[in-house]
């Protein structure tokens, strides 16, 4: 196991989420789940981050923001779609201003379903993302 799997720094972006998934992401950082045990840190900075956690669906307002953040992240990077909205657009999928899931804009590596997504599911998704991260690191070399 490489060092990427031991120190994944997460960037959390709230697309157009109802905050349900955001609260669960923050819950994962709190004492009960304490994801810092695995070296996971919540950075607010795309240049420092390895894992891009997105909650909420993509709409015409945030599409540029998501693309911008994704492009600012250094390689290797992994995108995790957290919650039903980020995976597929959920019940906002048919809205006039909604494009659907995050994979409509940027490549998504791991999908974590749920409404709201459970903290256990988020941790599991990030851990699965680490595999993809190591894989990408190998491909760069």
């Amino acid at each position, binding site marked *: 196991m490489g060092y990427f799997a031991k120190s994944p720094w997460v960037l959390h972006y709230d697309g157009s989420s109802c905050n349900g998934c955001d609260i669960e992401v923050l819950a994962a950082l709190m*004492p009960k789940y304490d994801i810092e045990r695995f070296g996971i840190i919540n950075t607010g900075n795309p240049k420092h981050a390895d894992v891009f956690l997105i909650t909420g669906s993509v709409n015409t307002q945030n599409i540029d923001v998501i693309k911008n953040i994704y492009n600012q992240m250094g390689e290797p990077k992994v995108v995790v779609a957290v919650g039903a909205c980020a995976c597929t657009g959920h019940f906002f999928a048919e809205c006039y201003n909604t494009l659907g899931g995050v994979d409509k804009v940027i490549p998504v590596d791991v999908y974590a379903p749920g409404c709201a997504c459970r903290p256990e599911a988020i941790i599991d998704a990030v851990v699965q993302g680490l595999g993809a991260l190591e894989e990408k690191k190998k491909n760069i070399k």
Partner: protein
Amino acid sequence: MSAFSIVLIILFLILAPILGGFIAGVDRIITARMQGRVGPPVRQPFYDVLKLFGKENLVVNRFHVDYVACSLIFTVLAGAIFFGGANLLLAVFAMIVGGVFIVLAAYCTNSPYALIGAERELLQMLAAEPMILLAPVGLYMATGSFNVYEIAAAQHAPIFHLPGVYIALCYVFTIKLRKSPFDLSTSHHGHQELVKGLTTEFAGPSLAVFEITHWYETIFMLAMLFLFFGSHWFWGIIITVLVYLSEIFIDNINARIKWELMLASAWGITIILGVGNLLVLFFINKL
């Protein structure tokens, strides 16, 4: 240069980052325990740095990498001068130059967050450096030498002459470590309003070098605090460890303050405890 000083310099070059990273790891564990969490393993800072070296270095200015490298070089030089037993004042100056290069590295990126961070780092240096410069002067007055080995060999520990200088140096030590309540230039967590300020535009290897520089700097500052105990190294180690533990404690119970208060309090303490102590020492020596 004696063989002893060369050995000590080599030991510093190898052990300082290891010890610095270990201190950072212990720091994170104690912080986590204070917050009711388990915390990462002690080796976590090393994992972070090794990972950062594997990441892509996104550089927005062609001088950026040079500035970051110069910062490391001058900070290491400061430590080498110190452990080589040369002039203490020169070591302090070299460390300040290292700090200036980090500010330049942040300025050259032109990012708003980095600019605010760089300006605040300059203010932090303005607050902390007068006391750090006064400390060697105090050590000279107490022991009659700027030479690190001669100060370290002092039979009568300089701290008995310089209690005020020591306390004031501990105060500005918090500013140099960029710990709360003085984490103005690099917000302690990346998701806060300043987005790490000084290091916002540092990606991958640049950030790794910045971390290593910080480890060297921490060891240098701790060594300077240790020097106040002269040849009483046993008490020196115990009290230096206690000082660092209290820094972690202070870090966890304080919110960030405004720069005005930082500057006023740091200079106030420097003038009252630092300069005051030196004045008293001067008159005692005259009598």
